[in-house]
Structure formats: structure tokens, C-alpha cells
């Protein structure tokens, strides 16, 4: 009887084993994410329009790391960590910038406390409206047109980098051109494609 109870309950060793298996995953993830810290700092500073040493930048980066580590299971297989974590820091920094603007406005105007209706109106709708969907479709059409307007090799380099996930060096080998040429093509391609996008699309397309 006692034996049955003992074996029916999960053995403590199993839990310890599960923790030790999970721990390196978190550790490895944290290490990889930490390597991106300088880039995250740069993005946060850029979004917040402050010097990289500003405390708000550190706060945003720390919050990003926390969210990334907590939500690491949401990172889909094959999805690049860099793009995913840059998306997080962008949102965190934008939230911080909005909070700062609201606080400044409140201080400047000595504004009355917001009503429930005002607060409710500020809650973003998770689904895009028909107008937003139409605007997004038009923007994506412009993006496709801009991509189509790139010279063949340049377009190929952009597609191989952004959609196939190849490195500049590998793209250079595949297309038979120096890596510096690939870097230039991708830089020009990004500029052309970014010009076809509004800042709004980048924000909305992540939702």
C-alpha cells in the first residue's frame, strides 16, 4: 500500500530534474538576449529621443528583458530572436514615451482627473477597423511595388535577408558578390522600402 502511494506521487527527483533541464534554457536565452542589450539600448534611446545614458532607457531595456524572458515560449520556432526582442523594446519604449507625454501634459495643464469614459476611449481596440485594414492593404501594395522597383539583384538580397534569414556573407556567396556590396544593397533596399511604409504600419502590423 505504502509502495503504491509512494510511486503514485511524483518523485522529488523528477521535479529537480525538470528544474535543471529548464534552467539552462532560461540561462541560454538570457545570455543570448543579454548580447542584444546594446542594440536594445540604442532602440529605446532612439524611440524616447533621449541620450543612451538616460535612466528611462535603462528602465525600458530592463523591462524588455523581463518581458522577453517571461514570454520566451511565445517565440515561434524559426522566428529570429533579434526581430522579436526589438519589437518588444519598441513597444516598451513607446509606452514609456506616451506615459511621459501624458504626465507632462497633466503637469502643464493641471488637468482634471480623467472620466471613466475618457479612460475607456483610450483602451486600444485589438482588432483593426475596416479603415485600418484598407490603409494597411494599400501600404502593403506600396511596399510590394517598392520591392518590385528594386534592381533584380538588390531585391534578391533583400528577400534573402529578410524572408530567408541568410547572413550578408551567405548572400554574397550565393549571389557571387562581395559582402560590402550586399550590405550596400540591403541598406538601399531598406531605405526604399521604409519610405513606402508609414510609421503607423510598423506599429500595427505587429499586433
Amino acid at each position: 500500500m505504502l509502495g503504491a502511494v509512494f510511486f503514485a506521487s511524483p518523485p522529488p527527483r523528477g521535479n529537480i530534474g525538470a528544474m535543471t533541464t529548464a534552467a539552462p534554457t532560461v540561462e541560454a536565452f538570457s545570455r543570448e538576449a543579454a548580447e542584444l542589450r546594446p542594440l536594445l539600448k540604442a532602440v529605446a534611446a532612439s524611440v524616447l529621443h533621449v541620450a543612451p545614458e538616460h535612466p528611462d532607457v535603462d528602465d525600458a531595456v530592463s523591462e524588455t528583458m523581463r518581458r522577453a524572458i517571461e514570454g520566451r515560449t511565445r517565440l515561434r520556432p524559426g522566428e529570429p530572436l533579434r526581430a522579436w526582442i526589438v519589437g518588444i523594446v519598441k513597444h516598451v519604449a513607446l509606452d514609456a514615451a506616451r506615459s511621459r507625454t501624458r504626465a507632462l501634459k497633466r503637469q502643464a495643464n493641471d488637468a482634471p482627473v480623467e472620466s471613466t469614459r475618457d479612460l475607456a476611449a483610450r483602451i486600444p481596440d485589438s482588432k483593426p477597423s475596416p479603415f485600418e485594414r484598407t490603409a494597411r492593404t494599400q501600404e502593403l501594395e506600396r511596399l510590394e511595388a517598392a520591392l518590385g522597383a528594386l534592381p533584380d539583384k538588390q531585391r534578391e538580397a533583400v528577400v534573402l535577408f529578410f524572408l530567408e534569414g541568410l547572413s550578408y556573407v551567405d548572400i554574397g556567396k550565393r549571389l557571387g558578390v562581395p559582402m560590402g556590396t550586399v550590405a550596400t544593397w540591403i541598406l538601399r533596399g531598406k531605405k526604399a522600402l521604409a519610405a513606402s511604409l508609414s510609421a503607423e504600419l510598423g506599429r500595427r502590423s505587429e499586433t
Partner: protein
Amino acid sequence: MTDKLSDQETWDGEHLSELALSCLADGQDVIDAVARVHAESCAECTLRLGGLALESHDVGVALRLAKKLSVQSVKAAHGFPTLLVAAAGVLAAVCGAPALLEGVPHVVDWAFAAPRAVPILTSSFVALSKALAAGPGGAAVSLVSTFALALVGYAVARASRSTGVTS
């Protein structure tokens, strides 16, 4: 072929060139350690790096979304059985042809009869609806009609969602 940017490509005076910062923003290990340290310690280069990383991120997200949507639209286009529907239409036309041809001589009669038939049919429908609503099954009829309307609305919403842009 070298795997690193040359000094000329990397530097633009005291600061990093846009090309070098773009490589860093894209996570490419193609600049030397000195340039990397500079990017982290120089406020101006850090801010430019952040801007380029954001630009790269937005372009990447939009391109992946565009690819996803174009795959979806191709799937949707392939999903509709155009040939089967056309074949069914042809078959129906062939089968119905004799009956339709038989009715051709009566078309003129129908044309004259229709203006008289429409008011009669309408008043019959109104009378029937009133009788049903007044009777014991009135509530049931309203309920069934509402349910049918809701179903039709749901079907239309589903159809428009599957053909529209998804988030």
C-alpha cells in the same frame, strides 16, 4: 572575398558610417571590435543605430506580413473550385434546356400575367404572415426568422473575413 567591412566603409570621419551602423542593426558580424565599442560608447552613433534598427525591424515585419498575405490570397484563389462550378452550371443548363424551350411560347402570356400576379401574391403573403403571427405559432415563426437572419449574418461575416485582410 573578405567577410569584414573595410575601414573606409566602416568610418565616416569620427563616427561610424551609415553602412556600418546598418550592418550592426541587422546583427551582422562584419565590423571590427573598435567600431563595435565605438557604437556602444558614442551617443550619436547609438541613436543612429537605434533608428536604423527600428527601420530594419519595421521593414522586416512588413515584408513578412506581405508574404503571409500573398500566400493566403494564393491559397484562397486555389480554394475556390471554379472548374467544378462551371461544369455544374453547364450540366444544369443542358438538363433544363428542354423545359426552358417548352416555356418559350408562353413567355408573352407570362409577361401580361405578371403585373396582375404580383399584387395578388403580395397580398397573399401579407395575409399569411398576419395569420401566422396571430396564431399560436406566431412567436415560433418570429424566433425561427430571427435565428435564420442571425445565421445569414454570421455566414456573411465569415465569408467577408476569409476574403479580407487578416491581422
